[in-house]
């Protein structure tokens, strides 16, 4: 049990920033550049940790609470979700609801921290972020409902258990395909990737997520970046397990399969960032509603 | 012989595309019309051949074939004179389209396979769209677009209805899925009822759109209003009869399956609604062609009521089919003449037609008297027969309602027609003159209707009776 916990946390903490590096490298290769080294995010985190804080005089304790919660929540959430075939350290009935709302908690604190600075840019970004997440959350819940219907349980461990492989080959395979696509779009929205948000933009008026963290500096910024990487890995874990439902029995090969799946996911995100442009802001709610309807349809197919 | 009847207009259409002379193209129409009428007469009167599963003539289709062919011949003769007047528009499209239209109508009349029937009716929609667009102005585009879209969607629903009927054969067990009419009629009692009823409803809606029964009639005033006179005559007299034939096939099927009463109720309801809507919209109608369109809706309603009541009224409906087609031909052609002369069809410009155009004006006036059911014209006899049937079957309230609505129609239509024909004669600006080709057809149609009102020849009576018998309950 303790070993499992350590393995889980080790995988999470060590591997998460590498995903960011893979995405950046993929984009660079697509653009014909060599790009930053794969371990660049680790160097960035180390550099930020060494610097000092700069706080604005208008902020309160909420301003620091945002990054802290943003770091702790993915850690907690990762304990609930199985990494590939490695079972989750903590598992109980209904933990999928906790999973979804832990992220809601972190979003709340991020938004509160952004509003705390009193800057109008950050308020604007906060409003956009909350709207989009509002529309993405039902999709996530419907997708989890589909999985719950297929597995007859309400714990993430049961949902992503060993019945997934035969489920893909049966009639429910179509629904699983649909929710895989919906979950991927939810991943892109929650992690502020193209086509919903451009992580490389430097124009504040076009930012959604980056603008909320504009005022942070030093270790707080490091916490935010690390937290974002952890969040991507945890949400990616859900997708990878759904897409690669195989398991061997040996922990090492399962872990390697999981990491390979995550790397593949990162490459996919990098490719999408390179070939697509960002959606116009009014289109984003339309696409999100479409995704939600897709997941509802998948649910109907499974309920039939 | 029947196959030749369907294919030869297509061959003439091809010829029309290749001929470079304007007049020659126009004359192709009456020549082919005459040949078609001759061949149709021979086929109908001649000995019946072995019925093929695809095309064959029974009593109903023989009747509609003769009527349609006659109407087409008359309109084709008119067309020569009309196209001579409209040289600015050219006839490279209208002549082939008219011929393809004839071929498609003949195919629809003779079809014994429901899928073939559908195909032919859709082909008539497509062939008639360029005809409506002949005048190429804003209003005709609007009319053509509405016609094309509404009729295509309606006919798509009819296709769904046909598929439901095939499914009724499949789901009923005992017979394979088929759309051949004779097979379906023979095994009708084995058809699955819910699918048959659903199919009937969709067929009624789909072909009812084509026929112009309310509430699916909204394209009619626009299309008939903007199309040239002879196109209006063909649509109102010929195409509606063909669409009605398609609906009658569905009624035949329902009757053979034992659910004839339900089928008739639906028809009766739609017929009454059509009559009501036509009566309402004909009051204070300022456009003479739209008036005629609503008159067409009214008469389709009367046909539906006739078949809906059954018995003697069905015989009346068959007679009415013949009379209506001929009278509509007469009315539309003379209205077309009036429009050409006044360069307008609205009452603000058109009045005093009796004085300025003695022949066309009086034909129009006489046609109005005929279409509203005045004796001694034929429509009086057919409407009277239908009313006798209604009162005979005990549905007094429906009969009274029908009489009231017919009176309303008479008043409404009369107001418009009398304003157009009487009143202060206007100095005509166009160079239009009534000539032989333009008036002979409407005049002959009118005389035929007058004849039918006074004397019903024995062979025609037998034909009508046989046609009505096909629709009656075979208990």
């Amino acid at each position: 049990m303790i070993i499992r916990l350590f393995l889980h946390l080790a995988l999470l903490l060590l591997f998460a920033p590498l995903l960011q590096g893979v995405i950046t490298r993929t984009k660079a290769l697509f653009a014909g550049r060599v790009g930053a080294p794969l371990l660049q995010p680790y160097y960035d985190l180390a550099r930020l940790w060494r610097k000092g804080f700069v706080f604005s005089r208008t902020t309160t304790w909420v301003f620091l609470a945002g990054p802290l919660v943003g770091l702790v929540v993915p850690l907690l959430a990762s304990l609930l979700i199985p990494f590939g075939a490695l079972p989750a350290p903590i598992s109980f009935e209904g933990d999928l609801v906790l999973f979804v709302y832990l992220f809601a908690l972190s979003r709340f604190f991020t938004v509160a921290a952004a509003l705390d600075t009193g800057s109008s840019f950050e308020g604007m970004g906060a409003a956009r972020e909350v709207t989009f997440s509002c529309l993405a959350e039902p999709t996530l819940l419907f997708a989890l409902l589909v999985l719950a219907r297929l597995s007859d349980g309400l714990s993430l461990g049961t949902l992503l258990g060993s019945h997934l492989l035969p489920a893909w080959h049966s009639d429910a395979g179509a629904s699983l395909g649909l929710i895989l696509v919906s979950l991927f779009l939810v991943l892109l929205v929650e992690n502020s990737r193209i086509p919903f948000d451009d992580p490389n933009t430097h124009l504040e008026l076009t930012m959604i997520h980056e603008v909320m963290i504009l005022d942070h500096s030093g270790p707080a910024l490091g916490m935010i970046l690390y937290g974002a990487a952890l969040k991507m890995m945890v949400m990616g874990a859900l997708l990878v397990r759904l897409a690669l439902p195989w398991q061997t029995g040996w922990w090492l090969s399962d872990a390697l399969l999981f990491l390979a799946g995550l790397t593949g996911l990162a490459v996919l995100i990098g490719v999408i960032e390179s070939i697509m442009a960002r959606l116009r802001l009014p289109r984003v709610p339309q696409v999100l509603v479409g995704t939600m309807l897709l997941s509802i349809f998948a649910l109907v197919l499974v309920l039939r | 012989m029947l196959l030749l009847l369907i294919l030869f207009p297509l061959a003439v259409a091809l010829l029309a595309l290749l001929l470079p002379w304007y007049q020659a193209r126009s004359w192709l129409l009456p020549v082919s019309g005459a040949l078609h009428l001759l061949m149709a007469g021979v086929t109908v009167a001649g000995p019946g051949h072995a019925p093929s599963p695809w095309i064959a003539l029974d009593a109903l289709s023989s009747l509609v074939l003769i009527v349609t062919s006659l109407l087409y011949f008359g309109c084709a003769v008119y067309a020569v004179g009309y196209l001579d007047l409209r040289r600015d528009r050219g006839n490279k499209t209208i002549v082939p389209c008219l011929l393809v239209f004839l071929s498609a109508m003949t195919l629809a009349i003779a079809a014994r396979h429901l899928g073939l029937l559908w195909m032919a009716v859709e082909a008539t929609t497509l062939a008639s769209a360029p005809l409506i667009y002949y005048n190429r102005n804003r209003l005709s585009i609007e009319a053509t677009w509405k016609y094309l879209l509404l009729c295509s969607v309606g006919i798509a629903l009819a296709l769904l209805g046909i598929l439901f009927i095939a499914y009724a054969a499949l789901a009923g067990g005992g017979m394979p899925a088929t759309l051949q009419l004779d097979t379906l009629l023979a095994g009708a009692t084995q058809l699955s009822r819910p699918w048959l009823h659903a199919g009937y409803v969709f067929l009624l809606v789909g072909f009812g759109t084509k026929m112009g029964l309310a509430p699916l009639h909204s394209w009619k005033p626009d299309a008939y209003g903007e199309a040239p006179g002879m196109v209006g005559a063909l649509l109102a007299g010929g195409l509606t009869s063909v669409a009605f034939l398609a609906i009658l096939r569905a009624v035949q099927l329902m009757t053979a399956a034992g659910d004839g009463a339900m089928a008739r109720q639906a028809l009766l309801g739609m017929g009454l609604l059509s009559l009501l809507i036509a009566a309402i919209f004909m009051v204070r109608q300022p456009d003479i062609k739209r008036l005629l369109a609503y008159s067409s809706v009214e008469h389709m309603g009367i046909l539906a009521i006739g078949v809906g009541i059954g018995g003697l009224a069905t015989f009346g409906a068959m007679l009415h089919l013949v009379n209506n087609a001929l009278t509509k031909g007469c009315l539309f052609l003379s209205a077309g003449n009036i429009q050409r002369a006044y360069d307008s069809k609205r009452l603000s410009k058109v009045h005093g037609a009796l004085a300025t155009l003695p022949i066309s004006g009086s034909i129009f006036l006489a046609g109005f008297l005929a279409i509203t059911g005045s004796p001694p014209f034929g429509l009086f006899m057919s409407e009277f027969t239908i009313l006798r049937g209604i009162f005979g079957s005990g549905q007094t309230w429906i009969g009274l309602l029908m009489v009231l609505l017919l009176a309303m129609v008479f008043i409404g239509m009369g107001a418009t027609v009398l304003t157009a024909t009487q009143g202060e004669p206007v100095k005509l600006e166009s160079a239009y003159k009534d000539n032989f080709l333009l008036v002979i057809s409407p005049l002959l149609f009118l005389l035929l209707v007058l004849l039918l009102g006074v004397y019903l020849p024995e062979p025609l009576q037998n034909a009508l009776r046989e046609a009505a018998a096909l629709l009656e309950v075979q208990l």
Partner: protein
Amino acid sequence: MLELTNPLLLAVILINFYTLGSARLVACVRVVALQGALLALLPLLSHGFTFHAMVLAAEAFCFKGVVIPWLLLRAIHRVRIRREMEPIVGFVPTLILGVLTTVGAFLFADLLPLAPEHHDGMFVPTALATMFSGFLLLITRRKAITQILGYLMLENGIFIFAVLLSAAMPFMVEAGILLDLLVGVFVMGIVVNQISREFSTLNTERLTALKE
């Protein structure tokens, strides 16, 4: 063969959703073409590789997948419009309506008295759903070309239902139906062109001169 028809029919439904929510005319035409091409495979997958099925499939692919979209794209090119306007109900409400009617179609199809071999299949619900989506497009959109696309989708839905009954539909009749569809779209394309020339727009809400 049934396992292959289900993903195909699912793709057809997804294409319905895309067309209901999209404003880009060229993309919509291409996607409806894809739907037609997918439907052309349906007779092959459900009835095996008989001569009848193969000819029907080839014909449907040619007409629905190639020629009709080409006609429509040519009409769009001549008329020089690229985007649909906001529909009468709005894109997102239309999409929601489309999904609701699809769900309704699935529920309704379970209640229908189908022949035993068609129960629990996806044919009938997909046919109903596609027909509803076609109707929605016809009713709620303003540009004439999208209305034609709605008509095509309606015909696609009817085609799915017809595949169930291919014993009843001899080859000649199906050929005739497809030919009618082709000529229909051709004529509609011409009329659309004329509308655009006369009115300088394809907004059918302008076609309101004829009244009463």
